[in-house]
């Protein structure tokens, strides 16, 4: 039981991932879909940050006079910085498309857009 709880970061990752995924699939409102997509991506950020953590370690910054210090792995943090940038640009582009959909169709509900597009 404790072993399972010890991985709680990963449980939260899976939970947030699924909540985001559900919102993307189940919601008809385009903005809500994008919110879900953002959550989906944030969950992955959480996973990467978790995997870089080393128990008893500090931030990976070299200091004079400090030796034998354990550092957290900086690589996943750098990777996820890049992935955050990708996520932000995806959301921005998605919102821009939603604005143009609103201009062209007058609605951001998926059902109404389908109706307006016709067969």
């Amino acid at each position: 039981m404790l072993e399972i709880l010890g991985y709680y970061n990963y449980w939260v990752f899976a939970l947030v991932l699924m909540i985001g995924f559900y919102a993307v699939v189940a919601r008809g409102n385009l903005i809500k879909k994008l919110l879900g997509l953002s959550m989906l991506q944030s969950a992955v950020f959480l996973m990467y940050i978790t995997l870089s953590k080393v128990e008893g370690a500090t931030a990976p910054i070299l200091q004079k006079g400090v030796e034998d210090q354990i550092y957290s792995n900086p690589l996943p943090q750098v990777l996820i910085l890049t992935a955050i940038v990708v996520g932000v640009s995806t959301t921005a582009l998605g919102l821009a498309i939603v604005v143009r959909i609103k201009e062209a169709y007058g609605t951001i509900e998926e059902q109404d857009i389908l109706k307006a597009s016709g067969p």
Partner: protein
Amino acid sequence: MNITPHLPALQVVVPILSAPIVLLLRPKGMAWAMTTVTSLMAFCIAIAIVSGVQQGQVFNYLMGSWSAPYGIELSIDSFSAIILLVVTGASALVLIGARRSIDAQIESHRQPFFYAAWLLVLSGLAGIVVTGDAFNIFVFMEISSLASYVLIAGGPDRRALPAVFKYLIMGTIGATFYLIGIGLIYIMTGTLNLADMEVRIHEVADQSPVLLAAGFITIGLALKAAVFPLHLWLPNAYTYAPHVVTAFLAACATKVALYVLIRFDFFVFQQNLSGHDLQFSYFMIPLALLAALVASSMALFERNLKCLLAYSSVAQIGYIVLGASLVTVAGLTASIVHIFNHALAKGALFLAVACLAIRLSSTQLTDIAGVARRMPWTMAAFVLAGLSLIGVPGTAGFISKWYLITAVLAKGAWGIALVFIIVISSLLAVVYIWKVIEQAYFREPQQANGAVREAPLELLAVTWVAVLANIYFGFYPAIPVSLSSAAAELLLGQMPQ
């Protein structure tokens, strides 16, 4: 200075640095000229790389001289070389003929943005192919995807917007799944370099995070590659995109995702996970066959020419997946040759559609009635490219079908059943191509088409270059076949047979 060792980096750097410059080129036509020249340069670099690879040269480029696996390594083998040729060739060829079609569809003040996005797609796709680093692939994949959303949404048709939104959602989910997959592999191996991963994953193979990673990566990339039934974004995105964008993306965007799928699976997983080859076959072969049958049948009932061809793309992706999922050298060769040949055939078809669209009001089948009398050269190009798509002897499409059927037959008894399905799907292709031919050649032209004349010369010229390439590679398939078989042997090289 010898420039040859720097070619892999230049392949990405040239278009990505030109993109912001293109943004500043306001005078009419300048943005197009700069983009075309850049794209031609990228094509020349790709040709130089291919000739180097064919002479047995290996390109390994350490970015910033950081030694692998710590730094990012660019590595090119024969598999990457043939895909580079497809991507840069398609971009250069389409751009040369694209100017008037783009003028007709996109306002001139938005054109610099459009061309800049085009160059970003090109550099992203080239980057995916040259890099040897798993995370780098993700970054380039998102560069090319985000830019291609912009290209698709650039057209005048408002229906492109919901289509591109769907593509954005599905594409991002695919990329995120891929990201989860490499995260899990990084947990287990501590490396992102594909060559290093291949060695290190051996010790931890068959542990659940690695298996989970294999699942996430396969599904994520299958979403990007529009493998049936994850193809839902593709038909509408291709249909409502600007015509030349469809020609460019149909030729290479999904192919590059398939390239990553095949490379990742065969490089990292196949030789290390026990029983993975069977799991891969049993999972992928049914999907590939369904793609060939269902998507071809959907194409039969489509009333829009571009949508018809888009469904046919889904079916052709099925063939490519089928070849790869046989997990034999012959199957992989067939699959890679078909990536090349399908890009030729579908690129030529969509270019012919762009020719039609520039003179006609729409791409609905009913609107092209009798158009062959007004645009004989365009329709002749369409027919020849269509024959290549079907796989008639003497065209490039025949070569890859031949390799595919040979590879499938080597599988024994149930191979015959597979051949049967391939033949049925090819017959369906005959029917839907014939539907277009019948409309264009044997129906009475509508009144509105009275003033229609032949398409602009440069667009027609590039269409015919693509068509002639189809015929040339149908008779002299040495270049794609030698590269593909070398690639297949490389990918399956260390497999226990």
